[in-house]
Each structure stands twice: as structure tokens, then as C-alpha cells.
């Protein structure tokens, strides 16, 4: 697998177009827009053929792949395999024909273990599993086990347990290379529903929301040995995962913690901060190219959009008509698609107007593949929906897994992968 760093096409375009004549500019503009659309303007270091971290490519809940089978009303997608899995909320990540995720095994009401586990993509057969920590037990009964999704690079996998252990594993049988215990080493307090923030890789640095004492809310670790590179800010461990985005030509690591939205560069320097109208959003910030961020929480204040100019964040839109709980929105062509409390909804990011609402999927999740939404209801029903603002248009559905399904699906190589606390399944869409 090859990791390619893409240049930021928008800034390249602006620079070149200034020096061109009008006709040429139009031609160049059309070409670049087309290219930009294909690439969706994201400028991060990932191979779009794989789904290697939480929310997949660019942590945006999208794939630039295409779905060949777009009419499920007449022909349902083919089940490739379905199998049992231990309790956990981690997404399934897939690379080079192997699925990695986390699960758990409970021994009695108070003990058990959490594991990093690998499956063969083609058959679902378990390849290996490695114990990473003791079991996180959810006192409210939402579900035990790990919450965060591992992230992978060429050689290694980085997992984060529900009790707060960050672990680097070799891809060969998951052998543990190093481990850091956030509670013991940084004084982090385990959130009521467990450590949930998914590890973010920025080049050779692993960036984490730690929630430690002494200005160690956010920390960066050397991915080779776990040594601390930088630590910043005061804050608790929350349920939010950081976003990596390129805005105004610079790589920015975005954290939403307590009631502050932070931006750091890869060295840990603060680029800007913004005081949010709510505290502790669980859904991830969403990048709206080229320089806006959407952040939503399940609060009456709903969401806000900030525009970043010269490292200053200015609110350009807010509203109460998109209140994301634990699953995030996906952005496509000027619109956000996501779950407003428990209703699937499309809103304009220009005006904030609600374009359509569809009820009946509970607190589900979704990803965007090409111009289609793959919506997973909170009871495991997978629905194919057109990603368009005009009207809700369903293209069919399949019942994939049964029971409470709060983990968003993953997409890789024409296949959709879903899991919940007891089952996982793979369906062929191409």
C-alpha cells in the first residue's frame, strides 16, 4: 500500500489562475473543478482504496469509490459473510484484505478483557487476536468493551482501550510494541462511558485526546516508541475524536473539548481557538472545504459553522435543526447529511435550511460513497439513499445485523462492513 501526500489544489489553482488569460482560466477552472470534485479537495495522506481509521478517508465518513449496485428495490446486495463478535463499538477498518477492530470478552459481571482482533476480509475468518486491556464495563448498560476505532499505517496498528490504554501493535499477529496507560501515567479520568477518542496519525506522530492533568488534555506520541512529543491544554477525556484538515494551506489538528474548539499544527503550536456555544460534543467536527468547520452536539443550540481566515475562526452559521448525538454528519455538495437526534436529515451549509427529514432509523449512522448515502439504522437496517437535497429518496434496504447498532459502517473495495455489540457482516455492493 502506498501513502501519497496530495497537494492542496485550491491554493494551487488560485496562484496559477491569477496569471492566466480569461479563456485559459475557464478551461483550467473546469479541469481543476472536476479534479477537485473527484478528490473532494481533501489533502491528507491516505490511500482511498482502504478504510484505515475512524470514519474512513479523511475522517469524513466518505469514500470516493463508487457503488455499482444502486437499486436494492429489485436486487438486494449479496451477503458475503456474517459472524459473531465480542462486545465493542469500534468501527471495522480494512486494509490489504484484512479487517482490524476491537472487541471484548466478559468473564463475569465485573471482569473481562479487551482485544485487538484481525479477520480475513474475504471470509470473515479470525486471523489473530491480542489482549490489550481489562474490560471496560458500562454502568448504564449501553454496552461493554472498547469504544475507540484503531488506526493503521504501513506496518502497525494503534488501538485505544475503553479503560484508557494506547497500544501500538505490529500488523503481524498484533504483537504489542509499546503501551501507554493514560490513567496511570497522565492522571486521566475515565469518562462515564469509557475512553472513546480514536487515535489520529499525523505523519510519524500519534495524536490523542488524553484528558490528563497538568495541561495534558491533548498529547502527541512518537508512533515508533510511544515517547511524548508534545502536550497541550487543560481538559478532560471526552467522547470526541480529533480531525486532521488542511485549511489555508496548513495542516491543522482540530479538537473539540469542553466548550473550546482547538486548532494545533503538527508541532503542537496553537493556531486558533474558538469558544463553542455548547460543551462536550460527541460527534466529530466536519471539514467543509476549503476553510469551514461544522460542529454539532445534541443540545438545543445544535450546531455552528466557523470560517477560518488568517488563523481566526468566525461563526458564519448556527442553528438548532441538526443536533448530532454520537454519530457524525457527512458533507457533500453544499449539504450536510446526518442524524438530528433520531431523524435522518439534510441541511444546507449555506443557509442552514432543512431540506428533508426522514424518521424511523433511530439514532443511526451513515457514510457517503460517491453520491449515495449508506445509512445504518440503530437496529442494523442498511438503507441506500440518494445524497441529494431535493427530497429523501430511498433506493432499497437490507437487514444486515440485529440488535442495537451504534457503530457506523465502513466501505472498502466495493463492500460494506457493519458491526454491533454481537454481530458483524460484509455485503457486496459492486
Amino acid at each position, binding site marked *: 500500500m502506498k501513502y501519497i501526500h496530495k497537494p492542496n489544489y485550491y491554493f494551487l489553482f488560485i496562484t496559477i489562475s491569477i496569471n492566466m488569460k480569461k479563456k485559459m482560466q475557464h478551461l483550467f477552472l473546469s479541469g481543476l473543478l472536476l479534479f477537485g470534485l473527484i478528490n473532494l479537495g481533501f489533502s491528507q495522506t491516505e490511500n482511498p482504496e482502504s478504510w484505515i481509521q475512524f470514519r474512513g478517508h479523511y475522517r469524513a465518513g466518505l469514500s470516493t469509490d463508487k457503488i455499482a449496485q444502486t437499486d436494492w428495490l429489485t436486487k438486494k446486495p449479496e451477503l458475503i459473510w456474517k459472524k459473531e463478535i465480542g462486545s465493542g463499538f469500534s468501527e471495522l477498518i480494512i486494509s490489504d484484505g484484512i479487517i482490524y477492530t476491537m472487541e471484548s470478552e466478559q468473564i463475569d459481571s465485573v471482569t473481562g478483557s479487551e482485544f485487538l482482533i484481525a479477520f480475513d476480509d474475504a471470509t470473515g475468518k479470525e486471523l489473530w487476536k491480542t489482549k490489550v486491556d481489562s474490560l471496560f464495563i458500562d454502568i448504564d448498560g449501553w454496552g461493554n468493551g472498547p469504544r475507540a476505532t484503531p488506526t493503521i499505517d504501513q506496518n502497525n496498528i494503534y488501538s485505544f482501550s475503553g479503560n484508557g490504554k494506547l497500544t501500538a501493535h505490529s500488523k503481524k499477529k498484533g504483537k504489542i510494541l509499546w503501551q501507554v496507560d493514560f490513567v496511570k501515567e497522565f492522571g486521566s479520568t475515565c469518562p462515564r462511558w469509557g475512553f472513546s477518542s480514536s487515535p489520529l496519525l499525523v505523519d510519524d506522530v500519534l495524536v490523542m485526546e488524553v484528558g490528563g492533568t497538568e495541561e495534558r488534555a491533548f498529547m502527541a506520541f512518537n508512533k515508533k516508541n510511544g515517547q511524548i512529543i508534545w502536550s497541550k491544554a487543560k481538559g478532560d477525556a471526552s467522547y470526541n475524536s480529533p480531525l486532521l484538515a488542511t485549511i489555508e494551506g496548513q495542516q491543522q489538528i482540530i479538537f473539540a473539548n469542553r466548550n473550546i474548539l482547538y486548532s494545533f499544527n503538527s508541532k503542537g503550536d496553537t493556531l486558533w481557538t474558538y469558544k463553542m456555544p455548547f460543551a462536550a460534543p460527541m460527534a466529530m467536527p466536519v471539514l467543509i472545504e476549503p476553510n469551514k468547520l461544522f460542529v454539532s452536539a*445534541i*443540545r*438545543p443550540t445544535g450546531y455552528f459553522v466557523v470560517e477560518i481566515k488568517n488563523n481566526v475562526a468566525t461563526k458564519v452559521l448556527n442553528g438548532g435543526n441538526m*443536533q448530532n448525538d454520537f454519530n457524525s454528519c457527512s458533507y457533500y455538495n453544499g449539504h450536510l447529511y446526518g442524524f438530528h*437526534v*433520531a431523524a435522518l436529515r439534510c441541511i444546507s451549509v449555506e443557509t442552514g435550511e432543512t431540506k428533508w427529514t426522514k*424518521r424511523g432509523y*433511530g439514532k443511526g449512522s451513515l457514510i457517503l460513497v460517491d453520491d449515495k448515502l449508506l445509512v445504518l439504522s440503530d437496529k442494523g437496517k442498511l438503507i441506500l439513499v440518494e445524497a441529494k437535497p431535493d427530497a429523501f429518496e430511498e433506493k432499497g434496504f437490507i437487514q444486515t445485523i440485529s440488535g442495537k447498532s451504534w457503530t457506523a459502517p465502513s466501505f472498502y473495495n466495493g463492500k460494506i462492513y457493519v458491526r454491533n455489540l454481537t454481530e458483524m457482516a460484509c455485503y457486496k455492493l459492486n
Partner: protein
Amino acid sequence: MKRIKNTIFFIIILLSVSPIINAQTVEDIIAKHIKAHGGEKNWEAIESMNIKGKFTAFSIEKDFFSIKTQNGSYYSERHLGKHYVKEAFNGKTGWTIDPWQEILFPRDLNKTEINVFCQKAEFFTPFYKYKEKGHKVELLGEQKEEGVDVYLIKLTRANGNIEKWFLNSKTYLEFKYESLWVDFAFPSPGQSFFDDFRTINGVVIPFYVERTFSQRSRIKQIESIEFNTQIDESLFEIAKSKEIKKLAFLYGNWDVKVEVWTGRGGWYPLGSTVSNIKFEATNMLQEKINYDRIMPQAKIINYSYNSSTKKYRLAVFNNFSSTIEVFEGNFDGNDFFADNVSISYGEAESKTVFSQISISEIESNSFIMEIKQSKDGGKTWNASDKFSYKKKE
């Protein structure tokens, strides 16, 4: 030409007044709403509904059942995440067992909950006989709501609570309503959505109801409805807590023989009195007893169960001395023991003599209560008072 002009003028006038001609009053809309639900006559024939189906909370779907009566009573049992919740309402007051609030016994509803239970108990629509119920209505206009054309009606209930109802302008059935709901006993704005209307025995009922309030989402999907079944009215009365029910043998009117332990070593009779013990609340039995022990003793004893310490608690108020003593203890099904050794509160701080209350020899119409005292912090106990209870004929 003049004729054409007149015709055009007439058409313009007609068009301009047509909205007025077509405009419906709120009474028209409500009449069509009732008709859409099957009409008054069909609903009048229904005294009660026994409803079964699936209830989804926290994305977990489980069975539920509820009972509604024409006179506004409501009873329901359902799973709410990991807990099982019971709730009842008699049209005015009600009770719930909701372990999410860490109270495991039935408790009375607060004001916010009573408002919500009024809504839950709604037989089919608040607009049915709304004037008789003392509600007021006002048509606020027409609009689109989530892509559906609706009439917006403001409903002011007899209790003063205001709701906004959105009736589908094509079907006249409810699309949604907005009201004050309740979350962990606190008020929270809520929305209720209705779908999957089905005709059953001539009446039209939404088989799908979705409620959202704060960050919560609840879905009720009806699977079956039985009409006019026999209803056990005792369901609506507040139930006793499971633990306090174990002390039900105390309930009743009693003749009581009172004795004191003498220094010579024997019980000395002080006479007899009467005691009345009754359930005063879901988790409390109360005894009233008067007797002379040198000075007159007028005692009110509250027996309750403390679910956090998992112990029975007795609060003894002596009306003569105006003192309160608190005891905690256990009941193993045969003998009851409670003392004030580990009780800490104002008057108990400087205590050097501790007391123990025991109940033993429990029969269907009698029991013995003894009071012992300790001067060594509860290591040894000495007999003090004895009360022999015999149920009055």
C-alpha cells in the same frame, strides 16, 4: 368589451375572496380530525384499550403493554434500557417505579410528570370533547412541517399547559405535537410524531409514535389492541414497596399489653392500650400508640425501608417529650431487629445509652415487640419494655 371587462373583474373578485370562502375554522378542522379518527360514535363505544407492542429506548426494542380508559386512567409496563419501568395514572394523580432514578419502590408523580401522564393517558386525541375537558383551542395557521402540509393548532389544556398540534391538512390526522415532556423528573421540551394509522373496529389509531425530548428518542409500535377488556382498577392505586410489604403483618388495629422489666428480674404489667398501624405511603407504615410509663407516652412510629443502605428504618416520635429517635435494622422473615447504635444525627451525638427494638413471635394475629437498652455501645443488651400485640376482633 365592457362585458369582458366585467367578467374579468368578477373573476378577480371571486379569486380574491376564494381563500375566505375556503378558510376553515378551528371547529371545522377539529370536526374533520375527529371524523378522520373514526368519529365520535365509534369512540364512545370504547371504554378501555389494552395495547401491546414494541417499545424502543436507547435503540433497544422490547415488549410493552399499556392500558387506557375512557375516563383518563393509564397504566403501562415497559423496558427502558436495562431497567423495567411501571407507571400508573388515575386521571388526576399517579405513581411510577423507575429504577433510573435510583428509587426502586413506587413513588408519587411530581407536577411535571402529572402533566406528561395526562398526555400519555389521552384516549386518542385531546380534541375529542375538548370543551367538556376545559381545553381551549386556537388555529395559528397553515404551514409545511418536515415536508407535510399541516394546520397548526394551539391547545391550552384545562391545567394551563400549552401544546402545539400539527394536523395533516390532507388527512386531518395528527402529524406531530410539541409539548412539555419530562426527563429524569425534570421538564424538557418534547415532540411526538405519529404514523402508520390503522383502522381497527371502526376507529383510526396511530400504530407508530415517536417521541424525542432532550437527547432522548422513544418509539412505540403497536402490535395489537383489545377493546373493552376487564380492567383491574387496583392497578392505578399506588403499590407498596416490595420491602415494606414484608412488614404487612404489622397492619391493623391492635390491643397491646405493656410491661416493663423490673430490677428483681421479671416483667411488671403497666396495663394495656391500643395501637393502630396502617400504610401511610408506598414505603411507609405508621403506628400510633399511647401508654403510660410513669409519664404519658404518645408515640408515632414510622416504619420505612432505606434502599441505599438496604435496611429498615424506624423513626419514633414521642409527642410527650418532643424527641425523635431513629433506628435501623433488618428483617429476616421471622424476627425484626433495629437499633440506634450506628445512627448519627443531632440528638444522637451525645448518646450514652442505646436502644434496640425487636419484633418476634410473629403470628397471623399477634406479635411481640421488645425494647432493650445497652450502655456498652451495643455489645450487650438489657430488657426494658415489652409490648404484646393481639389483633382486635
